[in-house]
Structures are given as C-alpha cells and as structure tokens.
C-alpha cells in the first residue's frame, strides 16, 4: 500500500544566541493508511519541529514532505489531506461551542458550511459529545476539549492525522477514551502519526515506532520487531523461596541460572518443561518469557546515545 506520508531527509536548524542549533537532522518517515506510527523521543529531540514541517507550519532547510504526492509547502491543497492536534495549543476556539467549532474549522478546511455541520454532528455523536454540542468549549472538561480537538482535526476527513501528545494533561479515564478513539480511527483506515511521552500508550497503539534522539532517528521498525529485538527471550520462573543447593545443582545441570528466588532459562520450550519437572512440587509464583517493553527499549536507545 502506498504511504500517505513520505518525508525524506528533513533537516532544520534554528539560530540560538547567534549560533545554529540543529533541531532535526535527516529524518525519513513513512505512514501508510490504517497505520499508527509512534514518533518518540526525549524532550527537545525534534519531534514537534518534525510534525510542524509535515503540516507545513515550519519550513524545512532541506528534505521534502509529500502527502499523497503533494507538497504542503508548495501546494496548499495538500493541507486538505492533513488534520493536526498540536501540543501546547488549544486547537479550538474556547468561546465557541463544539458544533460551532466544527462548522467553522470544517469550512476553513474547504467544506461547505452545511456539510461541515452535518459531519460535525456525526463526529460529536461518535465521540460521545453530542449532549455537549451547545456548551461553551471553555466549560468542557480537559478530556472533552481534547476529543473535540481531534474531531475538529478529522471533520474534513484528512488522510493523515498528526497527534502531538494527545493524552498530555488528561486523567486516566480520558486518556483511555483517546486511546480507544485512536485505535478505532486506525482500524477504519486512518494514517496516524503520534507523538507521546507515555510509552505504554505508544506500545498499545502503534504498528511501528520511530525513536528520535538529538534530531536523528536512532531506531525505526515495526513495534513488535523492535520489542523482540530488545527482548532476551529467556524464561523466568519465580519461586516462593530460593532453591536449596541440591536443587540448584540439578537446575544448573539443565542449563538454568539462579538469581535468588528466580530461575532463568535461556533454552527452548522442551527444556523449560524439564526445568519445571525439576522444580515440582515447589509452589511457583510466576512463569513468563522475558519481553522488553517500549520503555526499556526507549531508555536503552536514549542512554546508548548519551554514552556514544
């Protein structure tokens, strides 16, 4: 499937105190329909600058952005294919109601006002905001405001949705709502580029991950592949108490390693059963295969970069 977004060699430097500081240095990104790309990185890594270059809000020094083949920096029509919720912004008018915001921004994105109104109402219903459609936006909860911002970004049915920290400042329940929405949108074929500091959110939602450090991508892969690459793959058996010397010797003979009350086994499933037989009838607390999570992967990559 052709990518909705194709960014190549994006580069941006700003002047700070008389010298050039590179914010983004040769970033390549692709997002396909129905795909969620989690774009991760520590503060100041260049995520927001990259997103704004993709949205046509910051002009790159080098490189190119194509949204379904169109360049948002030269062809304003390309912006009709983009919707964005930007971090640190209200994104909508607080003095207007949700339905007024949707009609206004829908028209601003090229729809006829009547069509914007109709689509707006459908989105409000889908996002559970219909009862609040005539309430002032400033009176809505933070979670509702964020859902409205996402609805506004979707009213013109963009092919690419840019979500910069969509769960920032939300309570657990509101963040779960936003996560569910993102999952549903991707399921319906929406291409989504997502930045977040909440790595469990990125892990739960993303099909692919790109990790940015000091303006450069240090890892980019399918989320499952990246996690597998950083997982040791060994089994962990947790006991109630450390094994005695005799049992420890038997386990060692089977290739297992003992760390206190934990037995680590790096072999295959058949060997694991032999280890479990050796442990019978001791009570077991946990048996699982070690699997890295995105937080571990992220921290290792970012630390590696710091030591490099």
């Amino acid at each position, binding site marked *: 499937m052709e990518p909705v977004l194709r960014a190549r060699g994006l580069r941006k430097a*700003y002047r700070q105190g008389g010298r050039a500081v590179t914010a983004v240095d040769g970033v390549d990104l692709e997002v396909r329909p129905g795909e969620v790309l989690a774009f991760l990185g520590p503060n100041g890594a260049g995520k927001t600058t990259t997103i704004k270059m993709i949205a046509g809000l910051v002009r790159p020094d080098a490189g190119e952005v194509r949204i379904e083949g169109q360049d948002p920096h030269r062809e*304003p029509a390309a912006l009709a294919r983009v919707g964005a919720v930007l971090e*640190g*912004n209200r994104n909508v008018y607080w003095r*207007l109601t949700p339905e007024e915001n949707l009609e206004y921004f829908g028209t*601003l994105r090229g729809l006829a*006002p009547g069509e914007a109104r109709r689509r707006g109402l459908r989105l409000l219903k889908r996002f559970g905001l219909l009862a609040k459609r005539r309430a002032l936006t400033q009176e809505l909860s933070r979670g509702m405001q964020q859902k409205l911002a996402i609805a506004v970004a979707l009213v013109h049915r963009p092919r690419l949705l840019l979500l910069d920290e969509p769960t920032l400042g939300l309570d657990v329940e509101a963040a779960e709502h936003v996560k569910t929405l993102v999952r549903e949108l991707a399921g319906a074929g929406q291409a989504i580029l997502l930045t977040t500091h909440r790595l469990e959110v990125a892990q739960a939602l993303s099909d692919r991950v790109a990790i940015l450090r000091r303006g450069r991508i240090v890892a980019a892969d399918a989320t499952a592949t990246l996690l597998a690459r950083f997982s040791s793959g060994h089994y962990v058996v947790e006991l109630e108490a450390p094994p005695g010397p005799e049992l420890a010797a038997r386990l060692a003979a089977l290739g297992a390693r003992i760390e206190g009350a934990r037995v680590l086994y790096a072999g295959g499933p058949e060997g694991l059963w032999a280890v479990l037989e050796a442990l019978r009838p001791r009570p077991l607390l946990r048996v699982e295969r070690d699997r890295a999570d995105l937080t571990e992967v992220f921290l290792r990559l970012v630390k590696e970069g710091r030591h490099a």
Partner: protein
Amino acid sequence: MLRLVAIEFKRQLLMLRRYPMETAGQLAVIALIFYGLFLGARYVAGPTARFGERLDALVVGYVLWTLALFAIGDLSWGLMNEAREGTLEQVFLSPYGPLRVYLARSLANLAATLVLNLAVLLLLLGLTGARLAFSPPALLPLAAALLAAYGVGYGLGALALYFKRIQSFLNLFQFVMMFLIMTPFERLAAPGRLAGAVLPLAPAAGMLRDLLARGAPLDPGGLLLALANGLAYLLLGLGLLAAAIRVTKRRGLLGGY
C-alpha cells in the same frame, strides 16, 4: 472566498452574541458618541477627525476615525490573541492559505463593525429626528482611506506575526493615524503637498476635507490619487504580511508567544 467571508462573519456575530454585556457596552459607547455629535458636543468622541462643523461632516469624520483605527489594529490584535490562545496554527492549516483567510476575516469584521455602527446611527436618527445631509460621493475617499488603513494594518500584522507582542507599538500608531488624517497636507507648500500624496490615508483625508468642509466638488484626479494611494498601501501591506508568513515559517516562530 465568499464562503470564507460568510463563515468569518458568522464567527464574529457568534462572538458578539456570546458576551452580551461586552457587546451592549460597545453599542452604548457608539450610541453615546453619535448622540453627542447630534447634540453638537464636537469633542465627545475624543480626537476624531473633523471635516467641518456640519453634522454630516462630523459623522463622516468620526466614522473614518473609528474605522481606520479598527482597520489598523484588527489583524494585529487577532494574531496576538490567537498566538497566545493557541489557535493560530490551526488557522494556518487551512488549504485556503493564511492570506485569504485573513482577508476574509478583515472583510467580515469590517462588515460586522459597519452593521453595528449603521444600526445605532439609524436608530438614533429615527429617535432624535436628526437628519444627515450626507453626500454619497464622500463614500469614495472614505473607501480609499480604508484601503490604505488596511494596508497599514496588514503591515502591522506582519510585525505582530513575527514579534507576537506589539501592543505598545499599536497604541503609538493611533497618534500616527491622527497625524495622517488631521494634517492639512493639501494646504502646505510643495514638499508637504508631496508628502500628502505619498503618505497613507493623507490624500483621501484631504479629499474629505475639500468635499465636506470646503464644499468643493469631487475632483476626479484627486480621487484617482486617493484610490491609487489606498491600493498601493493595501498591496504593500499584503506583501509584507506574505513575507512575514514566509519568514515566520522559516524560523519556526509561528506557534511561539
């Protein structure tokens, strides 16, 4: 474009309706000033442009002054507020492009202001029985003056977009506008007269003085000059705004405040 103007007009009316006390206050101020003018209190509106002693001349002077002030500040205040509140970048995401959006916004906001002022004026004319011997040709230099004022406003908008906080500068511009509208350049010697042709608003204000205070007939040459002046400043202002948009995007300054 018409669609954009219509939706901006609707947004403006919604904002006015949303805060009824604020709008009522604005209407009361407009009503008091017009009523004061009717009663002959010529200085009630502050340092308004005066084009003679007749009521129509006072009203035209006041209308020009308020609309010109509105035109030079509207875009800048709007940009500063949007940058602070975090909606500016969403406006820039429009496929119409920011220039067309802001042009539409100017037209819509001007229309809303005109509607408010005219409604109050007509209401007061009806209530007081006062009559305006308004000469329709005066509308042409008024339009020329507004074109130039919008040009200056777009130039200031370019500064607001780049620097984000230019409130003091905007306040200072009230005095510049006063100088441009009230100085009788047409009565000055050659260098002053030349300045009167080149400076923004000056030729249109001079024409209004001729028409309303001195009772001179409409001079087609002068009108042409006033319109050319207005158009030139409008284009210059739009050019500066377009350049500011490019520079702001290049330096990544759009979202900051």
